[in-house]
C-alpha cells in the first residue's frame, strides 16, 4: 500500500472547471489541492456580466461553490500559484508550486485604507485595461479570497510604504518573497482554461487601433455593475451612449489564419450582449454579422427569441473591413450580405468583436509531458497516466458543459487512485 498522501489530487486552475473538479473529488473524500495563478478564484466566469444557461450574474453559482470550498477541510487552495515542475508517475507525483508574493496577509479585512493612500496606479487587467486601479487593489468586488493584493510591477514597496502605515490590521507585508511549495499527489487534473484570442492579430478589423472596436469580454465588463462604467454601456472613446452597435462573429474563430476551430460560445454571447444593449437602449439598433449562427441544442430558443426582436438584425456575411472616422470615432463596417449579394457599409458607434477562445496552453504548455491537439488544447487522452484535463483546457465550452466535463475529470482522477 502506497503512502497516504498519494491519495490526494492536484487541480491546476481555479476557474469554474477547476473548482468543480476539486469539489467533486473532495466531497467524496479525497484530499484536493487547488492552485490558481490569479489572486482570486473563479476564473473567466467572474469577468462575465451574466452567464448561461440561466443568465444570472457570476456570483450566483460561484458563491455556492466558494461556500463549499470554505466548508470542506479536504480542499486546500492557493492563489497566485503556478505549477513549476512535475515529476514521478501515476499515484506518486512530486510537484513544485511557485507561490508569488501577494504582499497582503490574511489579516486583511478589505477595509480599503491602503488604497486611499496608495499613490501609484496600474491598468486594471480584470477590466481589460479599460480603467485603472491603485498598485494595491482588490481584484474585483466579489473577490475570493476577499483580500487585497499588491502589483509589484507598479508598487515602490519600501520606497513608499504608505499603505503599510495606513493599515491598522498589520496586513501588509512588503518583504514577502516568492516561495516554493512541494506537493506529493496521486493524480493531476489540468483545468488551465482559456484566454480571449488576441484580436489585434486580425489586422483588417482595427482592434487596438480604433478605440470603439472592443471584444466580447470587454463588453461583459462594460455591462457589469462592477465594471469600469458601473454597468453603463458607453463608447470607450468618449463615454457617449450608443445607438448603433455591430457584432462581428467569428473574429478570429473558424479562421485558419487565427483559430481554425469554432469557439462554440460566441454566437450565444453576442445574442446575450445584444440583449444588454437592448435593455439599456430601447431605441438602439443592433446588427449581428455572422457566417452561421451556432446556438446548439436548447440554446436554439435564445436565437429564435432574438430573431423576433425587430431592433436586432442578423446579416449573413463576415465583416472583413472596419474603418474609423478620425473625427467622430464612428466606425464603418464592411461585409457582404450574402443572401442579397450586396456589399454593405454599415455605420456603427460601437463594434463588438466575437473574439474566440484560445486555450491557455496554446502559448505556454504545462510543465508535464502530456499531449495536445493541433489547436493547442490538451488532448482528451493526455497520454500520461494519472493526468487529466477538464473544461476549456480541452475545447471551447460553455459553463454548463465545463462543469459536466469537470465532474468526469474528477471521476477519472479518483479512479486513477482507486485500489492504490
Amino acid at each position, binding site marked *: 500500500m502506497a503512502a497516504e498522501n498519494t491519495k490526494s489530487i492536484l487541480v491546476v486552475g481555479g476557474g469554474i472547471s477547476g473548482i468543480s473538479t476539486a469539489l467533486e473529488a473532495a466531497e467524496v473524500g479525497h484530499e484536493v489541492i487547488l492552485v490558481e495563478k490569479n489572486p482570486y478564484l473563479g476564473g473567466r466566469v467572474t469577468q462575465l456580466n451574466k452567464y448561461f444557461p440561466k443568465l444570472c450574474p457570476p456570483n450566483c453559482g460561484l458563491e455556492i461553490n466558494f461556500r463549499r470550498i470554505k466548508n470542506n477541510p479536504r480542499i486546500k487552495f492557493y492563489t497566485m500559484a503556478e505549477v513549476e515542475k512535475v515529476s514521478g508517475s501515476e499515484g506518486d507525483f512530486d510537484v513544485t508550486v511557485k507561490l508569488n508574493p501577494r504582499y497582503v496577509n490574511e489579516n486583511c479585512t478589505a477595509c480599503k485604507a491602503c488604497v486611499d493612500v496608495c499613490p501609484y496606479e496600474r491598468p486594471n487587467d480584470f477590466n481589460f485595461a479599460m480603467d485603472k486601479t491603485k498598485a494595491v487593489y482588490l481584484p474585483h468586488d466579489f473577490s475570493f479570497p476577499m483580500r487585497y493584493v499588491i502589483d509589484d510591477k507598479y508598487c515602490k514597496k519600501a520606497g513608499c510604504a504608505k499603505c503599510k502605515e495606513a493599515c491598522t490590521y498589520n496586513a501588509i507585508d512588503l518583504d514577502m518573497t516568492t516561495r516554493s511549495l512541494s506537493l506529493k499527489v496521486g493524480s493531476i487534473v489540468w483545468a488551465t482554461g482559456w484566454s480571449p484570442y488576441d484580436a489585434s492579430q486580425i489586422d*483588417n478589423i482595427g482592434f487596438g487601433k480604433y478605440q470603439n472596436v472592443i471584444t466580447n469580454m470587454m463588453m461583459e465588463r462594460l455591462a457589469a455593475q462592477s465594471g469600469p462604467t458601473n454597468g453603463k454601456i458607453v463608447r470607450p472613446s468618449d463615454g457617449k451612449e450608443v445607438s448603433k452597435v455591430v457584432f462581428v462573429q*467569428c473574429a478570429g474563430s*473558424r*479562421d*485558419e*489564419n*487565427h483559430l481554425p476551430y469554432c469557439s462554440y460560445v460566441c454566437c450565444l454571447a453576442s445574442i446575450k450582449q445584444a440583449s444588454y444593449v437592448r435593455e439599456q437602449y430601447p431605441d438602439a439598433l443592433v446588427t449581428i454579422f455572422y*457566417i*452561421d449562427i451556432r446556438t446548439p441544442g436548447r440554446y436554439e430558443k435564445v436565437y429564435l427569441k432574438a430573431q423576433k426582436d425587430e431592433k436586432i438584425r442578423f446579416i449573413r*456575411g*463576415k*465583416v*472583413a*473591413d472596419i474603418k474609423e472616422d478620425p473625427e467622430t470615432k464612428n466606425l464603418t463596417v*464592411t*461585409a*457582404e450580405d*450574402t443572401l442579397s*449579394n*450586396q*456589399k454593405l*457599409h454599415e455605420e456603427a458607434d460601437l463594434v463588438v468583436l466575437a473574439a474566440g477562445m484560445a486555450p491557455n496552453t496554446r502559448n505556454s504548455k504545462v510543465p508535464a509531458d502530456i499531449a495536445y491537439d493541433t489547436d493547442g488544447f490538451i488532448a482528451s487522452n493526455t497520454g500520461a497516466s494519472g493526468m487529466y484535463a477538464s473544461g476549456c483546457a480541452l475545447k471551447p465550452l460553455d459553463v454548463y458543459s465545463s462543469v459536466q466535463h469537470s465532474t468526469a475529470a474528477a471521476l477519472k482522477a479518483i479512479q486513477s487512485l482507486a485500489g492504490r
Partner: protein
Amino acid sequence: MPEQLIKPDLNFVKDIIASGGESLKKCYQCSTCTVVCGVTPDEKPFPRKEMMYAQWGMKDKLISNPDVWLCHQCSDCTAYCPRGAKPGEVLGAIRKMAIKNYSAPSALANMTADPKYLILLFALPVLIFLGIIGSLGHFSDIPRGEDGGIVYSHFIPVPYIDTVFILASAFAVISFFMGIKKYWADMSAGMQLKGNVMDSLKATIVDILSHDRFQKCNVTKDRSTAHMLVFYAFIGLAVTTGWGVLYLYGHEIFGIQGTSLFHFGETPYPLYDPMKIVGNASAFALLLGMLFVTANRMKNAEKAGSGSYFDWLFIVVIFTIVVTGILSEVLRLADVDPIAYIVYFIHLVFIFFLFAYAPFSKMAHMVYRATAMVFARHAQREG
C-alpha cells in the same frame, strides 16, 4: 428570390479543380474575399458568388461572366480567406477555362493547357523554320553582310519571316475575333444595353494604360509595377516592329532614302538609330519586368499561391523570347558563329509560339479581360 433549378455540371467542377482550383471545396461562403477585394463593385460583388457557382458546377454562370475577368488576381482574397480556399486561384482556373471555352479551334486550346502536348506545339514552328533554313541551304554557308558581320536576314530572309508571322498572327486574330464575338453575345444575352460602346472602349483603354485597377491590389501591390513594365515593353516592341516595317518597305516600295540618323533600308541598323534605341530599351524593360513578375510570384507564393502550368508556360515563353532576343543581338555583334544563329532560331520559335497560340495561352487574358472591362462599363456594372 425566384426559384431556380440548378443542374450541377460535375465535370466542370472537376475541371476547375484540375486547373489549379483544388481548394475550391473548402469555401464556406463567409465572403471575407468579397470584402477585402479592392476591385469588386458593391452591387453583386465577386468572388464569393463565383466560388458558390463553381462549387455547384454552374458553368454557364461563370464562363460568360465578366466578373471573373474584372478580377486582377491581387490575391487579397486568398491571403485573408479563413479556409484556405484561395478564391484568387479558383478564379484564375475559371479564366483559363473561359479561354478554352471561347477560343477556336478548341482542340488547340486543350493542347495549350496540357503539358503533354507541349513538344507537339513547339514542333510546328521548329519544323517550319528548319524547313526554310534547309530549303535555303543555310545549315552551313550562311552569307555574311557587306562588312563581314552576321546578318540574320541573310540566314532567314525577311519575306520568309514576314510570311510565317503574318500567317500566324492572322490565325490568332481570326481566332480571337471569333472568341470575342461569342463571348460578347453570351455576356449580353438577355440584357438591355444602352449608350455608346465606343465610350466604354475609350474609358477602358485609359484604365488599362494607367493600370488603375491593378493599383488597388494590396497583398501583391508590386505586381502592378511589374505588369506595367511588361505591358509598356510590349508596346515598345510593337512600335519597334512597325518602325522596322517602315524602314524596310518604306525604302523598298516607296524608295525613301536613309539619313545619318534614320536608316531606311535593310537590316542590321546601327545601335544609335532611334528605332534601335526604342527596341533595345523595350527589350530591357521587358527583361526587367519579367524578372519582377517572377520575383513577385516567388515572394507571394505563400499568400497568393504558386501559379499553374498555364501561368508558368506563359512566363517562360516571354522570358525565353526576351533573353534570346537580347542574346541574338549581343552574339551577332560579338560575331559568335554558329551560336548566334541557334539562339536566333530559338527566338523565332518562341515568338511563333507566343503569336500563333495567343488565343489559347494566358496571352489571351489581354483580349478577354479588356473585353470584359468594356462590357462591364457598357452594362453600367462599374465605371
